[in-house]
């Protein structure tokens, strides 16, 4: 392999794009068939690697050429996994087992007949021939997830085929640092980790500071229980994140990036390692990227099971080799961050939007969403809902649309009681607020928050007091212990809630509560 010039990259792009047209176009002019198998963590634990292996073995035995088996990232509809999509026709086979491979090859590939019994069925029972016929996908707009389920995440050429590293080259050769930051600011992109801080503003603070070294950090410590948006992006489209970090590095004047990823995501870690190696090999990371004189490299740092390390200053402490206890702010990381240097810390999903904004323009991005919340948001839809999985919707889509139109409603004939957004930092939204548009401000107004994207639906069999107890139990065990209100206060709240639910409680009398709470 080895370092590539921009002409060579463009050559790969054009050649591969033609080759992969069938991945996105059902009318592609091709004699090939691609069997796409989801290789995200969810489907992997349901034996998708064995499915991939079986397909390859059978194709070889039958000496069938012109058919490729591709591992891809998450298609999103986890409830129907393991998922197999045949392109170009976009046939959607659901809940496939390794034993089904023989029939799929014989019937679909050889005889040209779809395997009816494996075709995905929508909630109302209608058989769906193609992925985009499903109600689940109709209201979605996949921007951050655009490559997930389309490309093989361990093949850099496939990433390049779909405009990979085009944004980076554009930035390095035609835009100044300020122009990049300006574009991101105009797009209205806000932090997708939960707080929603304007990304362009964060980058501009870091750029303003003079320093001999600056850092770009990707926060991939997705700790919210029930959230797997970031994991899916890292597993399905890791290069998106690498390219975005390089763009961020250029704009603020950093030459080194770190991805802090939780060790509980072994597949994501593996995909990142492969992606970084491939990018370095092509000269898209490292010294003198694409001959522009810009240096930028990325290393991985693993987390070790502390939820609090998702908080940006606790994350910095962790990378510095210490207990992950948050620092008092100010100073903010953009001024004084990793090893005391100006640092920006961005969430995985935030970064996944960057290349799209550069290529399509800030105006395009700002045309999606609401006035103060631009673009789309990825949600991990879970709990008592039919279509459990990953969805990406324009900001402003209502909770009702997500739970019922996309999510397919509540199973077992039960009723919607509440939806939790924002994980342990968020709140419950009751039925009366189902028509709330999902955006940063509206959610805060009704007592919840956007959070990182976990959206847990609950039916009438869930006890809301017990749900509060559950979240507090989590918070208590994850409290770093540094400040008294959290270390002691949350424990006291938990004890009260446990008493209410009559779980095993070692509650003591609360004569001192008044003193503690003041």
């Amino acid at each position, binding site marked *: 392999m080895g370092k590539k010039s921009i002409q060579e990259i463009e050559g790969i792009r054009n050649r591969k794009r033609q080759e992969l047209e069938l991945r996105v176009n059902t009318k592609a002019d091709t004699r090939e068939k691609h069997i796409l198998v989801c290789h995200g963590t969810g489907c992997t634990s349901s034996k998708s690697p064995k499915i991939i292996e079986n397909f390859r073995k059978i194709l070889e035995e039958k000496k069938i050429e012109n058919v490729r088996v591709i591992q891809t990232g998450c298609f999103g509809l986890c409830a129907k996994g393991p998922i197999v999509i045949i392109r170009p026709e976009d046939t959607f086979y659901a809940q496939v087992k390794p034993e089904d491979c023989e029939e799929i090859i014989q019937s679909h590939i050889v005889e040209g007949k779809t395997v009816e019994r494996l075709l995905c069925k929508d909630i109302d029972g209608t058989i769906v021939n193609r992925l985009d016929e499903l109600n689940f996908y109709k209201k979605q707009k996949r921007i951050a997830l655009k490559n997930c389920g389309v490309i093989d995440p361990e093949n850099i050429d496939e990433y390049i085929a779909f405009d990979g590293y085009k944004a980076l080259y554009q930035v390095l050769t035609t835009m100044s640092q300020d122009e990049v930051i300006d574009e991101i600011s105009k797009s209205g992109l806000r932090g997708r980790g939960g707080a929603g801080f304007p990304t362009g503003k964060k980058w501009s603070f870091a750029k303003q500071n003079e320093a001999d070294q600056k850092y770009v950090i990707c926060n991939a410590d997705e700790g919210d229980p029930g959230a797997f948006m970031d994991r899916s992006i890292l597993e399905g489209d890791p290069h998106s994140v690498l390219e975005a970090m390089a763009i961020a590095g250029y704009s603020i004047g950093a030459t080194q990036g770190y991805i802090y990823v939780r060790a509980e995501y072994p597949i994501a870690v593996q995909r990142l390692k492969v992606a970084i190696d491939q990018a370095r090999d092509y000269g898209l990371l490292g010294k003198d990227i694409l001959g522009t004189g810009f240096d930028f490299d990325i290393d991985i740092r693993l987390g070790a099971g502390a939820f609090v390390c998702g908080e940006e200053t606790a994350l910095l402490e962790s990378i510095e080799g210490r207990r992950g206890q*948050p620092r008092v702010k100010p100073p903010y990381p953009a001024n004084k961050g990793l090893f005391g240097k100006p640092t920006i810390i961005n969430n995985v999903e935030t970064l996944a939007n960057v290349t799209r904004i550069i290529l399509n323009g800030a105006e395009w991005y700002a045309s999606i969403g609401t006035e103060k919340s631009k673009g789309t948001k990825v949600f991990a839809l879970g709990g008592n809902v039919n279509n459990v999985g990953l969805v990406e919707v324009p900001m402003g889509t209502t909770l009702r649309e997500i739970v019922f139109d996309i999510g397919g409603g509540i199973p077992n004939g039960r009723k919607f009681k509440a939806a939790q957004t924002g994980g*342990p930092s968020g709140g419950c939204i009751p039925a009366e607020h189902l028509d709330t548009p999902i955006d940063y401000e509206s959610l805060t107004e009704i007592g919840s928050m956007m959070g990182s994207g976990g959206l847990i639906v609950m039916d009438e069999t869930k006890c809301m*007091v017990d749900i509060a107890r559950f979240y*507090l139990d989590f*918070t208590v065990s994850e*409290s770093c212990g540094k400040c008294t209100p*959290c270390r002691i206060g949350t424990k006291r*709240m938990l004890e009260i809630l446990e008493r209410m639910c*009559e779980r095993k409680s070692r509650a003591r009398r*609360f004569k001192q509560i008044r003193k503690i709470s003041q």
Partner: protein
Amino acid sequence: MNGKAEPDDLNKLERLANNIKKSAICGLGQTAPNPVLSTLKYFREEYVEHVSYNKCRAGYCRALCNLVINPEKCRGCGICKRNCPVGAISGEVKMPHEINQKICIKCGTCADKCPFHAIEKQTI
């Protein structure tokens, strides 16, 4: 079996939550009380029911619900009776069985073992 909540617990909970929000040093501590505050806002009746009436309307909190055998589903197989650790279940073979609520410790073993899913939680 009563829940052990004390009458003043709701007020204490709310005051604690508001104070932690204001005084924790990082975002996590500041938002930790949110699940409590939002459920208190929209589902206050459930809290009141737990504290004042020892009732769980969702039928979830074991200590606040009774386990009851549905006579229409029960086949009288006796598996629950044999597995009950405190001998709270009585009934003849092939006749619907019954749980004595005074003896029952609500461990749930009977419900887990019943092959006909005949044992249900009922709010008291």
